[in-house]
């Protein structure tokens, strides 16, 4: 199984998939998060076309309480 590094932890994916598909699989609302792939922010408009594959480092963040 191909592996990616997702928020610092290894995560198995069945096959390369789009950011949209990854977020769906994780049950995340695309409007509430931001995604970085290999240190580069993925623009929302590119979620369908940006492909996550073996060895990618992915960060998914959201807003939390802070000052």
């Amino acid at each position, binding site marked *: 199984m191909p592996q990616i590094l997702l928020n610092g932890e290894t995560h198995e994916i069945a096959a390369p998939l789009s950011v949209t598909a990854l977020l769906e699989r994780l049950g995340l609302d695309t409007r509430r998060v931001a995604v970085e792939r290999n240190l580069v922010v993925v623009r929302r408009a590119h979620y369908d076309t940006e492909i996550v594959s073996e060895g990618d480092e992915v960060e998914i963040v*959201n*807003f939390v309480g802070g*000052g």
Partner: protein
Amino acid sequence: MDPLVIAGRSFQSRLIVGTGKYPSNPVMVQAHEASGAEMITVAVRRVNISDRSRESLLDYIDTSRYTLLPNTAGCYTADEAVRTARLAREAGLSHWVKLEVIGDEKTLFPDNEALLDATRVLVKEGFVVLPYTTDDPVVCRKLEDAGAAAVMPLGAPIGSGLGIQNTNNIRIIREFSHVPVIVDAGVGTASDASLAMELGADAVLMNTAIAGAREPVTMAHAMRLAVEAGRLAYTAGRIPRRMYANASSPVEGLVGR
């Protein structure tokens, strides 16, 4: 009250509040309401992949009413802060950022050198950068020269509640700056906020002073009034300090003299 203008955007409120450390989200919502604030800070963190049951902060912030100001809190290098700011822009669809680059864990004092580097990078990328800095007039001037939309000198360490430790520096920063000066961090109670405003600060940003109060909603109301009172007093122009008394009643016409 005269509006606060940052990067061409007008705000009626001169109080900016945070979203951290509240006893509950509903209390936070009420406190925001009571504060009268129009801009609210949020932090950027990794989504918890294994436990997504937690509520989203954004369920409790009406973004049609409040301007979100994402921060880069917890970042220790310019690179981390820049990455976080870019993610925040994508998450919030806004190019405003409260830029923090921390230089010391114990005091949470900023690393001003890295802060300047990160400011330059983000300004070039079109961000409206509001940097959290030490109360150093020279650093504030450099940040302004680097394109910061405002400067945010600390009053005291984050969350310390010590109040404005160097009132003279805040005054000097106000005198030197051509961008808004926002006192960020260190406020403990209402009089601290008033003092910041009386010194000429254009706004005050606080989180713990409200969220950590026994009654956050009441404290938020107090802070709203304090910021307004301080601003009005600054605008009105205080009397000079004198060593001795200066009678306010006529000295002539006293009975029996």
